């Protein structure tokens, strides 16, 4: 286990370095941010002073050296916009996004498994068609439209929920419902497809003929085998959420890292952008490692990638 983890961490280091250097280079390509921080009628002297104060006059390699050195000390500098420590700003915002993403994916997976399995029990039956329609619609609806409509219906018209903000438990409902729909829609289709093929396997017939109940057949046997493709897609969707549900955060005023990143890009706040991107990248690499471990959990035949143990064929044990 530890060998595996060590190998994965080492192999994640290279893409991480690429991210660290890449975000620096791409941000600097956008030019001098002085215009965004100085008044419109600032004089040339003021622009010079601004550049000197923030190190933008230094050669690019010197700036990169300072930045990389800072990364090793976990010092990303201070925000041009607020004057706060950039790493502190990113670390403060990240858990809010993690909470939102975590709860959303958890609910999306549970609901998708239930609905997808139900649909797969009778392919092309009524349940299947209804759930297909719902899931296609859910996967297609734009989240910004849904968010505004949700606020209009549930907050303004019915008054059941708050419009936005983070003040109470009720304020979780609309953001999560908005974010949930697309992952739910996509996952239902994946689960349904994987379950249909799983349920048509010979061992399922054998299990049924041995008297296994429907739920045992579905959850104990078929689902475990259908889980791998669903896990792949779920992982991909989770990464998208961790990246920051920017639209939801913007509309609902959720103090997460997605909005922080967008604001930093628009304001060319390099320090905060670099910190936020790095934190997000590390969490995505971690998530990918967890997903790999998840495969091993689900399918004993699968060794986590990078394992040095010889693969063995392992027959399905039907209890």
């Amino acid at each position: 286990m530890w060998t595996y983890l060590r190998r994965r961490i080492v192999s994640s280091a290279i893409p991480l370095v690429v991210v660290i250097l890449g975000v620096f280079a791409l941000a600097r390509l956008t030019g001098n941010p002085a215009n965004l921080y100085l008044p419109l009628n600032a004089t040339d002297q003021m622009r010079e002073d601004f550049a000197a104060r923030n190190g933008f006059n230094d050669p690019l390699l010197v700036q990169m050296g300072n930045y990389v050195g800072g990364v090793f000390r976990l010092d990303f500098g201070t925000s041009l916009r607020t004057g706060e420590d950039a790493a502190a700003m990113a670390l403060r915002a990240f858990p809010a996004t993690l909470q939102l993403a975590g709860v959303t994916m958890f609910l999306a997976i549970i609901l998708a498994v239930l609905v997808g399995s139900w649909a797969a029990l009778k392919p092309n039956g009524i349940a299947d068609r209804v759930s297909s329609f719902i899931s296609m619609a859910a996967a297609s609806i734009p989240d910004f439209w849904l968010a505004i409509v949700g606020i209009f219906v549930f907050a303004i018209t019915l008054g059941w929920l708050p419009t936005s903000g983070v003040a109470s438990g009720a304020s979780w409902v609309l953001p999560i419902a908005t974010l949930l729909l697309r992952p739910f829609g996509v996952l239902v289709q994946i689960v349904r497809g994987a379950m249909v093929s799983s349920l048509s396997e010979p061992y399922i017939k054998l299990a049924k003929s041995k008297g296994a109940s429907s739920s045992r057949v579905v959850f104990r046997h078929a689902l475990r085998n259908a889980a791998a493709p669903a896990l792949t897609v779920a992982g991909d969707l989770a990464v998208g959420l961790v990246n920051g549900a920017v639209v939801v955060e913007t509309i609902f005023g959720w103090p997460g890292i997605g909005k922080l990143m967008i604001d930093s890009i628009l304001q060319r706040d390099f320090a905060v952008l670099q910190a936020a991107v790095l934190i997000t990248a590390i969490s995505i690499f971690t998530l990918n490692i967890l997903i790999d471990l998840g495969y091993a959990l689900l399918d004993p035949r699968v060794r986590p990638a990078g394992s040095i143990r010889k693969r063995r064929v392992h027959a399905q044990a039907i209890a």
Partner: protein
Amino acid sequence: MLSSSPISRTLRTSKRLAPLVIGAGLVMVLASCTVANSGGSGGGGEAGSLLRVVLPQEPPTLEPCEGSLTSTGIVTRSNITEPLVERNPTSGELEPLLATEWEATGDTEWTFTLRDDVTFSDGSPFTAASAAFAIDRAVNSDLGCNIEGYVFGDDDLVVEAVDDTTLTVTTVRPDPILPLRLSFVEIVPESTSATEKVREPIGTGPYSIASWDTGTKLTLDRNETYWGDAPAYASTEYQWRAEGTVRAAMVTSGEADVAVGLSPDDGAGDLGVSYANNETVALRMSGDLPPLDDIRVRQAINYAIDNTGIIDSLYTDATKSAAQLIPSGVVGFNDELEPWAYDVEEAKALVAEAKADGVPVDAEITLVARNAMFPKITEMAQVLQEELTQIGLNVKLSMVDTSQSLVYQLRPFVRNEGPIVQLIQHGNQAGDAQFSVDQYMTSTGAQSTFGTAEFDAMLEAAGQLSGDERAAAYEEIFAYQNENVVQFATIAHMVGEIALAPTVTYTPDAATGDEIRLADFSPVS
């Protein structure tokens, strides 16, 4: 029995626990039911004691010397901190605040008499020394304050506290509007860092900072040691939502009392209140590049734009057609100037005349506009492109983000993409035309694409005058611009909108977009 790898065994033996672990984790996360980075839930105060304001964005800082930045000044100015004098946005007059009197006591010297009954919210006394410190810090230091750039330029001030209640300020050259400039400098105590900007300042204002849950909300409490009349609300809570429809929804659903920065389409309905803000929208032409270097083409552009049609179809009744870059109420506004007539035939004739003289009217002109700079800017830009095309010009529309638009907007401009007309919005929050004309009309102005030596001399001379002479000189400058220079095609004096809960009384004015003076709010009795 076939064996499996230790990894799989480990994982499988724990597989039954995994769902429990995950479930327990989520329960713990949700059980706290507070969002990370939120500082816990907020509640409303008793009715009448808490004013809830929702802004378009979180103030990046509350540093008073950045007060000319709207996102900062809207919270700090005249709430947490105060200047020596304050401009009345309606009358345009300067009114005493921390200073009771002021006069020019020399060519380059002004003397201010200060109040002697003021303390900062931390209990320290306000004296001329504090005022001198604050001005020195904002204008002369290396902090790089926004106010320094916006109001004072490269020139430093010499400030001296003659005694506890007397302050002299000496300028590099005669400056008839120095007191107006000082209305931007908010006074802080000498304990404030002079080498670094501060995020949470101390001031003399009617409110002080109670708490700032960064990312979520900012609360100000009434300053019990305030020298003036106590404001009606004991506390103010600021939140922020980027989306205008959500801000309006918060007021209509009772979650907030005031929402700012709205457009008429945001759904505030009967709770929306319009007011003439100090913003003017115009096209600025790069008049040193052909074909825009021919005054006939620039005049044609003015004739081609249907100001009234644009305003009627896109904006509310209160929006006015503009003939100059400043609205009425600003010193220098020329109320005899009429907007250009909408005359497509005249425009076409002028273009044809220029073309006959060899002016390359077919050269591609880029119309640059910044996304979301003001409501319906995209629609306005599309209409302008169409109107300019129909008179025989070749116009391409380019919508850009803030950072890109600033490259086009400010010196050294963009010189390798041909002639540019840029849709700009200028707000003169200072109340004097000099703040507009210096940057937009001198030949070296930060936002001026061209000028003439004669015009420069007029502008320089006007800046030295005061009183009625000053106003008259600037009025002439705007007339001269329209007649002889034609760098601009002014379109509209814009209107802002806020939403007010039915329990709140407030009358917005031209400054409301830049400052929300909390003392002006009171509960409906």
